[in-house]
């Protein structure tokens, strides 16, 4: 069952002719696509197709040898990761990248880091401006915690949480930054049906309520067809499909890639 198609006017991110290699291995070859503001864009493809590498390029962790990325109208060849964060790009990771020494609450509070400015002196004193700032951001974080229904594990060190909850906390950390573009790398990997439904609900709610643009990598075709507006298909680092889910579903090249027909 496909989502009713929505139309979008503004382009938020454009990827142009991106090529990326590590030593002799070509991870991405001449990839171009765009992401419209407010849409849910999926990137799919068999394992090793370069999907995570593509996300890493978008948020500045990998630097492509060729090509450029235009975000919010500004074209750039390379961007440092914290610049991407400052520009409103947040992400989650395939192999959870939470801060294991800290609690759930503290992890999500780090998502607010860019908006907290009180310097060392006020922090040392704590009373007054620093305390007020901390409380103000705590309120935002608590709203995220409510939204994701993780109140009961607020103070638990994240290293002790089960995998599904860790993924939720990581989503919380990304949401706390109030991003314009949310990159999700396999947010539902390793989850059972119920957990996946919860996660889909969260993703759609975020897109709905806050208008956050979402770009997600996902293997579950049911999820992809259900929640995404448009899909990009990668295989062996090349783009082999780009369009609405219904069209992609029936594209021969995509079917061949997944079934492993050599081409």
């Amino acid at each position: 069952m496909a989502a009713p198609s929505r139309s979008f006017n503004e382009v938020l991110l454009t990827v142009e002719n991106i090529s990326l290699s590590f030593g002799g291995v070509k991870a991405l070859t001449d990839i171009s696509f765009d992401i419209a503001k407010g849409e849910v864009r999926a990137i799919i493809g068999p394992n090793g197709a370069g999907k995570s590498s593509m996300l890493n390029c978008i948020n500045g962790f990998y630097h492509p040898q060729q090509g450029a990325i235009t975000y919010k109208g500004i074209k750039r060849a390379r961007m440092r990761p914290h610049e991407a964060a400052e520009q409103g790009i947040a992400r989650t990771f395939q192999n959870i990248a939470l801060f294991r020494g800290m609690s759930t609450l503290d992890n999500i509070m780090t998502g607010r880091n860019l908006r907290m400015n009180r310097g060392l002196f006020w922090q040392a004193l704590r009373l007054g401006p620093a305390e007020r700032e901390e409380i103000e951001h705590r309120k935002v974080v608590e709203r995220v915690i409510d939204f994701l229904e993780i109140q009961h594990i607020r103070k638990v060190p994240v290293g002790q949480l089960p995998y599904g909850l860790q993924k939720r906390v990581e989503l919380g950390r990304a949401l706390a930054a109030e991003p314009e573009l949310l990159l999700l790398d396999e947010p539902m990997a390793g989850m059972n049906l119920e957990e996946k439904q919860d996660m889909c609900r969260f993703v759609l709610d975020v897109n709905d309520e806050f208008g956050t643009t979402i770009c997600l990598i996902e293997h579950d075709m049911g999820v992809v067809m259900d929640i995404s507006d448009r899909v990009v298909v990668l295989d062996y680092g090349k783009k082999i499909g780009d369009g609405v889910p219904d069209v992609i579903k029936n594209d021969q090249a995509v079917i061949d890639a997944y079934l492993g027909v050599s081409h």
Partner: protein
Amino acid sequence: MIYREAGQYKASYQADQAIFPIAQDRFVVLALLAVAFLVVPFVASEYVYRAVLIPTVILALAAIGLNVLMGYCGQVSLGSGAFMGVGAYAAYNLTVHLPFLNPFVCILLSGFFAAAIGIVFGIPSLRIKGFYLAVATLAAQFFGDWAFLRVKWITNYTPSGSVNAPPLQLFGWDLSSPTANYLVALLFTVVLGLAVKNIVRGHIGRQWMAIRDMDIAAEIIGVRPMYAKLTAFAVSSFLIGVAGALWAFVYLGSWEPAAFDINRSFQLMFMVIIGGLGSILGSVLGAIFIVLIPIFLNQALPPLGALVGWKISTATVSHFEAMIFGALIVFFLVVEPHGLARLWSVAKEKLRLWPFPH
């Protein structure tokens, strides 16, 4: 049962975020502070001051500083001895060249000097990690050893190589008695320790811990590695520098560069590891432990040796000290990497139920 938290509800974020949210903790800490400030001065002897209390308090401050860098921010440093030296010699130079300044002002200012130098030696940490960074900090240590000895203006061209601190006074009150020394050191440690505890609870502390736990992810969520690491080096060096100045002015009185050599760096590192990385309480516990062990061994070993007919010399005692420290380091790293501080919180967990079995 004694440590029951039930019934203590937090009605505001402020209450939830307090330094000691649990009432029993607050009580214990205030009681300890009261004893430390008000009771000890009346009961401690000069020996106890000079052998136990003053070194423990000053080294606890240094250990807190090192813990900020190693425990909270995850940057290894084997150069903390040299930074204590920077603080000591900076304070000394201030008293020599600006004699109108009160010595305590000089001690505080020396922290800023140490922080500045700490930032300089912290710059390599932006590119170098792990034990490569440890090697870089050793460069700081050996360079410091050399500079304190050979760069003559640092020691004000003293012929003997050792320098003396000025007498300690505040607004005319003479503060050179052991009790006054102890109280001064305690005041510095408690105030600066509190400041650090506040910093660590806030967003800067979280940045440090994020860098420690996964620096790549930290950068991706917007933590600027340079700001985080250099502030860690700055705060850490400030504390260690002030501790060094206190060590020189309050504890030693007169000193040579050897007081701040690599053995001091190892001593501080042992305190931090045994006490618990990433814990202010751990730094204090570690300091107490490391100061007490040699004293204990000195008292206990010779009689024990006499029991088996072995005459134990002071050199042998120091070898045993090395063996015990080494074994303890391995023990804590294997059994409880979070050190004495974790053992303490485990004990508190058990106190929740004790004396009931479950």
